Each structure stands twice: as structure tokens, then as C-alpha cells.
């Protein structure tokens, strides 16, 4: 029997996203956690199927506001696999640099949120200030700050001028110092250590059993990174190193993300420096075979999978997205139970959850699954 049930969400100051956690407490200690989503289902897989391949790239970029380019890159990559085409080297390097810049902005945003959950608002403000350098660089390259829309089938949509590249490199030099400063701050702050070390521990076996991905897996000592295993884009040429920590607690997850930022800065610099003149887009004949394709990328939050099935028309017959948070959210029970209520926001944030990506909806009426059609929804109004 539990003392108290605390509703955590769907609207809660700790989480800007709609998720409903039922926390069963005894005193301040968490005894059990129940989790439900479905407050913000956008039906994006269906809308991808209703657009042609070119338009749906932009829709894929709008699955998530933070890892926009991860989604559109993964989708484009899958479609390119379907068509069996290669992209030019220049386009590959531009995609890689956008991809890594996006990881930088995502991790800086995460670090800020992580500080905020611990009541450390200064860390939040600082990392959001440094994030501006990344957003500025993204704006210089793509013309947009948040949703980049640079991918298209066969290459990228915009070229990068020499001037832009030197500006971005300058931004990255400043950013490197700033990130090192943040790393120093996080590693030496006694209260951050007190709040995170030993909390939300996930050992290697848990990670393997629950199939966790991304920085969460790497913080528990598992060197699993799609950038290394799949060798997509230009990561193989750039000599990418996997960041691994062994403790598996909230502090280790913080360190993994901070070190990944430094690695990302190195990768972007290298990618931009090795961009050589050439075309940015191959000519593509949009002749889709009746086939299916699957492709993965390492989004800032972990492994992102896209599956596309084609029926020969100019629209995909089926698109399936497996977002990283969907895999990671399984460990909630493991990291929350046994700790106090004060650790809930910190542990939850340490997964870097993108709960809108995780939203799934199954309607069960009278014990049976039911399929809701668009007409039914209109009928309710």
C-alpha cells in the first residue's frame, strides 16, 4: 500500500511536454511509477504517407523541433536507399556538419534543462547563452535556426560559401572554450555531484535487457553508436571516437553528453575544413521500385530508425519511425524507484526525453483495439 500518489504531468513545471507519470510515494521515497502518453499525438506517420517523397522530407523534419535534421536526414537516407543512389561528397559533408551542429544545440539545451531541474538556473542561462553560437552557425549555413530543411533526395538544398565556413569555424572556436568552461563547472560543482552521483543507476545488464540507446547506453559502458556501426554520412572519413563512461548514473550521462559536445565540435570543424568544391546534388530519376528500406542514424538522443515501404507511386505506402526516447523510456522504473521525489526531475531529464516523439495512441474499447479513421474524428466535432 502506498502513502500518496503524486501526479507528475501532463502539465507540470518540470516537463514542458505532455506526459503523465503516476508516482507512488512512501514518505519521499518512490515505490512505483506508472507512465502514460497520448496527449499530443500528431499522426505524423499518416501524414507522411499522404505527401509525395519530396514534400514528406519537410514533414519528417517537423517530427521534432530539437532533432529536426536527424529526422529529415534519416528519412532522406532511407528514400535514397530505396532509390539506390549516392550523394556527392560535398553534400555529405554539409549534412554531417549540420547533423553535428544540431547535436551540439540539442546537448546544450539538455544541459540547461538538466541544471534547471536541479534548481541551478545559472547553468540553464549559461548553456542557453552558449547555444546561441550554434544556432547562429546553423542560421548561417541553412538560413534557419531551428528547423533546418537542408536535405533533399540526392543531396542538399543550399550550398555553403567560403565566407560562411570561416564564420562558422570562428563561432566553433569560441564555443569550444565555452563548452570546456561548462564541463569544468559541472565536474567541479559539489552540489551537482551530490545530486547526480549514484542516482538513477543503470548497469550494463539493464541496458542490454531493456535495449536502451544513445548516451544512456554509452554512460553505462556500452560503446554503441550508430555513427560507428553504420558508418553513414562522412563519419568514417572523419575518424569518429565514441564517448563512453562506466558509472551509468546521472552524472555519467551528463559527462557523456558534455564530452560528446567537444567531439561534435571537432567533427564539425574537420567536416567544414574538408569540404571541397563540387556539386551539392546529384540528378535523381524519381522512379520508385516496389520495395522497402530501413535506415538508422544516431540522433542526439540515440538511435533513430526509419522504415519506408514503397508501392511504386510517388508517395510512400508506409512510414514507420522508431524514436530514441521510445526505446529509452522503458528504464523509467529502474532509475526512479528507490530514490526520492527530488530525484525524479533530474533522473527523468538525464534520459533527455522527447516525449512528443514517444507519443503513441491505441484506442481500446470494450477490451478490443479500435482503428480510428479521419472521418470518425471529424464526426466527434
Amino acid at each position, binding site marked *: 500500500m502506498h502513502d500518496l500518489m503524486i501526479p507528475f504531468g501532463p502539465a*507540470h*513545471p518540470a516537463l514542458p511536454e505532455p506526459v503523465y507519470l503516476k508516482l507512488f510515494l512512501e514518505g519521499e521515497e518512490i515505490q512505483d511509477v506508472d507512465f502514460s502518453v497520448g496527449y499530443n499525438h500528431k499522426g505524423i506517420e499518416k501524414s507522411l504517407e499522404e505527401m509525395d517523397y519530396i514534400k514528406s522530407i519537410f514533414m519528417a523534419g517537423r517530427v521534432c523541433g530539437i532533432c529536426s535534421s536527424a529526422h529529415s536526414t534519416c528519412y532522406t537516407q532511407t528514400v535514397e536507399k530505396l532509390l539506390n543512389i549516392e550523394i556527392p561528397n560535398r553534400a555529405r559533408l554539409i549534412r554531417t556538419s549540420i547533423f553535428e551542429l544540431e547535436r551540439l544545440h540539442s546537448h546544450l539545451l539538455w544541459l540547461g534543462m538538466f541544471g534547471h531541474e536541479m*534548481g541551478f538556473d545559472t547553468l540553464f542561462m549559461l548553456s542557453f547563452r552558449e547555444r546561441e553560437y550554434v544556432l547562429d552557425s546553423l542560421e548561417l549555413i541553412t538560413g534557419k535556426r531551428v528547423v533546418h530543411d537542408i536535405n533533399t533526395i540526392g543531396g542538399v538544398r543550399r550550398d555553403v560559401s567560403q565566407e560562411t565556413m570561416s564564420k562558422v569555424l570562428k563561432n566553433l572556436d569560441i564555443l569550444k572554450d565555452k563548452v570546456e568552461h561548462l564541463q569544468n563547472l559541472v565536474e567541479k560543482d559539489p*552540489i551537482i555531484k*551530490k*545530486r547526480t552521483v549514484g542516482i538513477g543507476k543503470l548497469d550494463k545488464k539493464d541496458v542490454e535487457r531493456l535495449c536502451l540507446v544513445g548516451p544512456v547506453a554509452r554512460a553505462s559502458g556500452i560503446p554503441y553508436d550508430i555513427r560507428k556501426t553504420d558508418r553513414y554520412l562522412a563519419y568514417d572519413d572523419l575518424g569518429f571516437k565514441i564517448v563512453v563512461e562506466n558509472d551509468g548514473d546521472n552524472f555519467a550521462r551528463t559527462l557523456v553528453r558534455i564530452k560528446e559536445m567537444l567531439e561534435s565540435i571537432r567533427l564539425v570543424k574537420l567536416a567544414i575544413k574538408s569540404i571541397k568544391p563540387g556539386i551539392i546534388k546529384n540528378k535523381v530519376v524519381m522512379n520508385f521500385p516496389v520495395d522497402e528500406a530501413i535506415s538508422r542514424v544516431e540522433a542526439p538522443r540515440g538511435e533513430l530508425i526509419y522504415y519506408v515501404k514503397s508501392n511504386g507511386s510517388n508517395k510512400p505506402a508506409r512510414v514507420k519511425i522508431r524514436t530514441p526516447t521510445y526505446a529509452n523510456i522503458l528504464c523509467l522504473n529502474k532509475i526512479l524507484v528507490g530514490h526520492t521525489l527530488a530525484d525524479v526531475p533530474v533522473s527523468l531529464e538525464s534520459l533527455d526525453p522527447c516525449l512528443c516523439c514517444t507519443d503513441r495512441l491505441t484506442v481500446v474499447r470494450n477490451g478490443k483495439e479500435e482503428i480510428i479513421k479521419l472521418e470518425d474524428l471529424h464526426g466527434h466535432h
Partner: protein
Amino acid sequence: MVIIEVFFISIFLSFIYEGIIRKVAARMQNRIGPPIWQPILDFIKLLSKERFEVQNSNFSLVSFLSIISVIGLITIVFMFPFVGILNFNWDFILLIYLLVFSTACFILVGFSFPSPYPLIGSTREIILLLAYDFPLMIIILFFGINYQSIQFIPNNLILSFPLLFVSFLFITQAKVGLPPFNISEADQEIAASFLTECSGFELAMFNLAKSLKIFVMVSLTTIFFFNPPNIPMFFLTSLFVLFIGILLRVILARFRIDQGFKFLWIFLLPLIFIDIIKVII
């Protein structure tokens, strides 16, 4: 007449102090921040808002507590040396009572609502009260035994009791609920804690009580450890104390309740005893 003047001046000053905290903290965090008079605007706006009576709650008690907590805190201002409305020997006992009273009002608010967030907030505040009130009482009683009345505290005690000053700063942070001790008001965990269900007039009064608490605790620190001879010096010194408080607020993350308790007892109590034993010997 003097009582009414002191009443309004202390309310005005507490808003200004709150505004200074917001502004300076914002500048430290590289933000622009709200104008210094923002708390006054917030207060006026909240007064114009609807009062929402929560079902199954003891709403009349909440309304009563919101007024009483403000009055209790202003009573402390009446004891300050240059105000001198309440001056008698052993007024330190009354001071301890009034300081606990203001916190007790907040705790009772949490228990008046059927919602779990205020409940947890109040429980945490009780634990925290236990943690910071013991060191606080030791310090105040120590001053009480030495000087008998707030009026008789000599100037610049900070030179003889630097460790007491350091501990008093941390206790102030805990008392007014600023980081690293904003445990009972941790909005990431328990929303707005005991004020989650309050609105309109009650919320305005409790916000005022919070600001008054900051004003009272900062002024007490100034009186205990500096006791400046005139009012301008008093404000300069209390701004200095306020600045240290803002610095602690900005550079520290929030403790967990057990860590906060350990910090206040295991770290601060020995510091306090070192300074006190020095006098006894």
C-alpha cells in the same frame, strides 16, 4: 501614526528588495531581468485577480493565515533599533516566536488544501524548519543572553563572530527559501508547493509575506553583525548582505532535503559552537 508609516515603508522596502534580487540575479545570469518595481506591479495585479475557492479546503483559514503571516513579520520590523516601537528586555524570545510563526503560517496553508503538492511542500518545510531553526535559535539566544535586547547590540560584531555571520547567511537562505535551500518550494518537483492552490488576494499576500521574510532576515543579519549607527548606513550594509544572498542564490544548485538537513546540522552547528565557545572561555 508611526506604526502605520513603518507598516507601509516595510512593505514597500520588501518589494524593492525582492526586485533587487530579481534584477541582480538576472544580471549575474546574463539576462536583462524585470524592473526593480516589478514585485509591486505583480502584487497589484494579483489583487485584481479572481479568488478561487478550492473544494474541500479550509479556505477561511487560508485567508486568515495570509493576513496574519504578513502582520507577524511586520511586528518584527517594530523591534528594530531605529524603529523602536517594541523595545523591552528579552525581546529575543518574541523574535524567535515571530520567526517560527511566519513559517508556521506557510506550513498550515499546505495542510489546508486536499492537493498532494502543498502537502509535500509543507512536510518538507517542517523538516527544514527543524534543520535551520535549531542553529538559528542558538544564535539568537546567544545574542539574547549577551545583550538582552536588540536595542543594545553593539556595532560591528562581525569582527568578533565571523563564523556566526557565515552560518547566519546560510540560515537566512533556508529561512527565506532561496537556493540552495528552496527545497520546500522546488517548482520542478512539487509545482508551487504550498501556494499551488492559492490565487488572487491570498497569493498576493503570501508573496508579500515571502518578500517581507527576505527583508526581515536581511535586516536582522545587518543588525546582529553590523548594527550601523544611522539609517543610510543600515541600508548600505543590508544591500551588501542582500548581495551575498543573491550570490549564493545564483551560484548554488538546490540541495535534496536530506542533504540540506545534513549541511545545516553537520556543517553549520560546529561553526556556530566554535564562535560561542570562544566567548564562554
